[in-house]
């Protein structure tokens, strides 16, 4: 099936792209480049969503990630010692352990993926408009409670973050 072939190809391409950019995040010394790399990685993920005909989610991902990564870039510049990465300082610790952990995680997941019986493939996907409408109905119907609590959680988190971030008055005056 050519459609599936195309899908396979592009999926592989953008998947690899996501992975590669993810690696770049941690290999580069420049902070801004890390942030940009992460941006690209997330964007690739969003494209993958689009490829998998989850259009709403894909658009959402790209938009969100773009914004988030920008913010992150700013923060990076704020907090990093060497945002430009001109200094060649080793910024990692427990490297071997991390490598092993990453490796094990990768291998384990791959083992599951490759060895599991995933069952028959579903071929027909609802149209995007239908998807979104169903999603909306789902949100405001069955999963209303979940999203209400999620919304509350987000609000709480925002308030908390703001509280944490804002310094007390006497410290600000100093």
């Amino acid at each position, binding site marked *: 099936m050519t459609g599936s072939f195309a899908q396979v190809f592009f999926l592989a391409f953008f998947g690899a792209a996501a992975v590669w950019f993810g690696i770049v995040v941690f290999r580069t010394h420049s902070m801004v480049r890390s942030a940009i790399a992460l941006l690209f990685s997330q964007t690739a993920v969003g494209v993958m969503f689009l490829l998998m005909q989850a259009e709403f989610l894909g658009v959402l991902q790209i938009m969100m990630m773009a914004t988030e990564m920008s913010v992150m870039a700013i923060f990076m510049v704020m907090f990093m*010692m060497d945002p430009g990465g001109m200094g060649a300082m080793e910024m990692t610790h427990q490297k071997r352990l991390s490598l092993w952990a990453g490796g094990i995680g990768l291998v384990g997941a791959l083992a599951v993926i490759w060895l599991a019986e995933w069952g028959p493939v579903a071929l027909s996907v609802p149209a995007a408009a239908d998807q979104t409408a169903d999603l909306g109905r789902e949100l405001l119907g069955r999963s209303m409670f979940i999203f209400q609590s999620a919304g509350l959680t987000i609000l709480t988190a925002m308030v908390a973050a703001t509280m944490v971030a804002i310094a007390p008055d006497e410290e600000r005056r100093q």
Partner: protein
Amino acid sequence: MIPELIIALSAGAAMFGVGLYGALSQTNLVMIIMGVELILAAALVNLVAFWRYLHPGEPAGQMFVLIVMAVMAVEMAVGFGIAIARFRSRGSVEMEEARELKG
């Protein structure tokens, strides 16, 4: 065995591994958050793949993705708030120096 599913899942697995490596190996808090972002992205990929290739009729799959995205956003917000506070008090967000929670 659908190639698309396998590929998507494999990509997700690889992203997960890289993200894990990063979360564990980075000294800076922001880098750690980036690693966690990667892990979450991998999870999202998995979710969408499963939805698309195994249960496309279920809107619950997409809803789950929305939840994860919300979690990502919240986590970043709170994380950066903490980073600011820490930076303000210590002057850096290097995790090597953060031993306050030592038991």
